[in-house]
């Protein structure tokens, strides 16, 4: 049996690969959606956080011989700490201004981080191996599925839906949403709003860090790995609806699949298909698929 002139098993393999890339889109767009949904900051430094996540993993392994598993715990904390410092020292001063100022500040910060890493490490990719326990591949009959790729899909699903539950279904989530929706009233009720805002930003950055370390064994660990990806991720967020957490997760995975499908049918178009979909979605639903109409 054939679809689009290729056999169904081959198509299934390509779709699984699409799901793997979707896992990264979902993780990254989730962080952006959390930050934008709560703080109204368009975080252009997100790609640089992702890159720093991968480089932190590389440096922990190269200089301290930390294992992948240890790094998976430490790297998000490093990114969260860095983001907290950035938020406290700079972004906080832009509260209440047009979101454009936040965009410019974070964009500048991304350029500084990327330039700095290029200065130290050069542009060539740094080596990083997957953990030995995940290094093999299984023959699924229709494709070789590397264990590490399957692991990434599972972890991404857990983190994404865990985050959704945390923000939409728990007490902590409702406090966060209250603090960001009406800061002055929340402060009257005794909530420490600035700390909550910093924590949210740090959490978003930690998500980028998780994506970064999971990318290190598969993709190039290089200073511009984030800027190559972030534009697509922004398109994913826009398609899902700016600030919608479930929208970011679903559109992340879905666009990964669509991109995977495009690679089979007409590979040359694979890096524009997401933007074509974005244009179509914006034409019919300007607030995105899951966004609240403005």
């Amino acid at each position, binding site marked *: 049996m054939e679809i689009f002139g290729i056999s169904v098993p*081959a198509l299934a393999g*390509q779709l699984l690969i699409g799901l793997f890339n979707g896992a990264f889109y979902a993780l990254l767009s989730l962080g952006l959606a959390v930050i934008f949904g709560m703080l109204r900051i368009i975080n252009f430094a997100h790609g640089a956080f992702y890159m720093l996540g991968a480089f932190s993993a590389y440096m922990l392994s190269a200089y301290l011989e930390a294992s992948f598993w240890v790094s998976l715990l430490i790297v998000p904390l490093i990114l969260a700490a860095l983001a907290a410092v950035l938020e406290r020292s700079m972004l906080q001063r832009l509260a209440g201004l047009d979101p454009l100022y936040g965009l410019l500040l974070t964009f500048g910060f991304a350029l500084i981080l990327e330039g700095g890493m290029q200065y130290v490490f*050069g542009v060539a*990719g740094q*080596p990083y191996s997957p953990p030995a326990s995940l*290094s093999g591949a299984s023959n699924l009959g229709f494709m*070789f599925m590397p264990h590490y790729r399957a692991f990434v899909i599972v972890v991404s699903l857990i983190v994404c839906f865990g985050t959704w539950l945390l923000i939409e279904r728990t007490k902590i989530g409702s406090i966060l949403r209250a603090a960001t929706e009406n800061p002055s009233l929340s402060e009257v009720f005794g909530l420490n709003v600035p700390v909550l805002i910093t924590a949210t930003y740090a959490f978003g950055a930690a998500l980028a860090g998780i994506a970064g370390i999971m990318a290190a064994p598969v993709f*190039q660990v290089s200073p511009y790995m984030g800027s190559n990806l972030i534009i697509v991720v922004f398109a994913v967020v826009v398609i899902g609806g700016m600030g919608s957490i479930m929208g970011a997760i679903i559109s992340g995975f879905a666009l990964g699949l669509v991109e995977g499908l495009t690679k089979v049918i007409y590979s040359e178009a694979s890096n524009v298909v997401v933007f074509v979909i974005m244009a179509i979605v914006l034409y019919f639903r300007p607030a995105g698929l899951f966004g609240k109409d403005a």
Partner: protein
Amino acid sequence: MSTLSKLTSVAFATCLATSQTVFAAEDPVKILVLDDMRGIFSGNGGPNTLLAVQMAVEDFDTSSLGTTVEVLSADHQNKADVGSSLAQRFIDEQGVDAITFGGSSAVGLAVQGRAAESKVITMTTGGYAPNFVGDQCSPYGTQWAPTTRELARGVAGTLVDQGLKDWYFITADYVFGRALSTDAADAVVDAGGGMKGETLHPLNTNDMASALLAAQASGADVVGLANAGSDTETAIKQARSFGVGDKLAALLFFSNNAQALTLDVAQGIRVSTSFYWNMNDTTTAWAERFMERNGGQVPTMGHANAYAATTHYLKSVAAAKSQDAAEVTAMMHSLPVDAGILENASIQENGRVVYDMLLAEVKAPSESTGPTDLYKILSRIDGSDFFLSAAESGCPLVN
């Protein structure tokens, strides 16, 4: 430290200074190294090309010149406008006699055009487009780097001869990638092999899994990578987990890529190259001195070609007893190239330097004796009828 190396050191330090610098000698021979010093091509060219040129000058007996030699350098950042205006500035203000360059071929071609107008010698040591000695050849230009055509044919033709007949190409979807895969596919077919298929991917693709999966499913004997830089590295890094790690042939690959990827990842990849650092006693001795001075970075074919080209240029200046571009170029074409770095080398009428090439395979970690032990040489490719002849090159200077 000899007077000469003191002079070249001073030249280094003032390489970007715009003011006229006064040196002891009258009308010294000035060589400009114009390369990508920090960007994506700085590993196979860059600062180490400057080192190679400096070493060539130090190793040369300058008493035969009757004057001193200065080495200048500048970073063209892979931008054609920056490169050609830098070249013009160094020609006008410093009066450079020869320019060696690498990095993006688009920059190199702009520089070669500018230099030809000003009657300045150009030596393409790190530019791999065939145009340097083809449609855009210069009467004062020589190309020392092999072109994409030879690199593709070197690896493709030889592997088909060894019985690996069915090929699948993973190709970067732009002029360079398509040219590379067309050249390689021609060589495969000429040698009696066949094509199993091809996947085109956009430049700077993050995930090559889709293409690798298709290549694996095709059942091809060899997966040819018709791309460059980070795309090649991504494909190599991801290939092993899809069971095609041992089938890869990279059409444009440098020893510094192998060093950066680590042997664990890059092992088994077959490449063609004009140079490997311990291919003979001369190259080994030279490379060991080279690595002593740069912290153990293996010289690539770009660095070796810069050394060979500079040596041959200085020898030709001495023999011509002139710094005139036309006279020196004529001497470069007629003198034998015997720097010891290139094997059986000579220069064609269109400026193409012809030599024997190598087919090599990246060693497995267990076969390697140290961080610089990267390749094992599988076979040598006779250069005499391997390169395009001057008549076939399309160079308008050739009748």
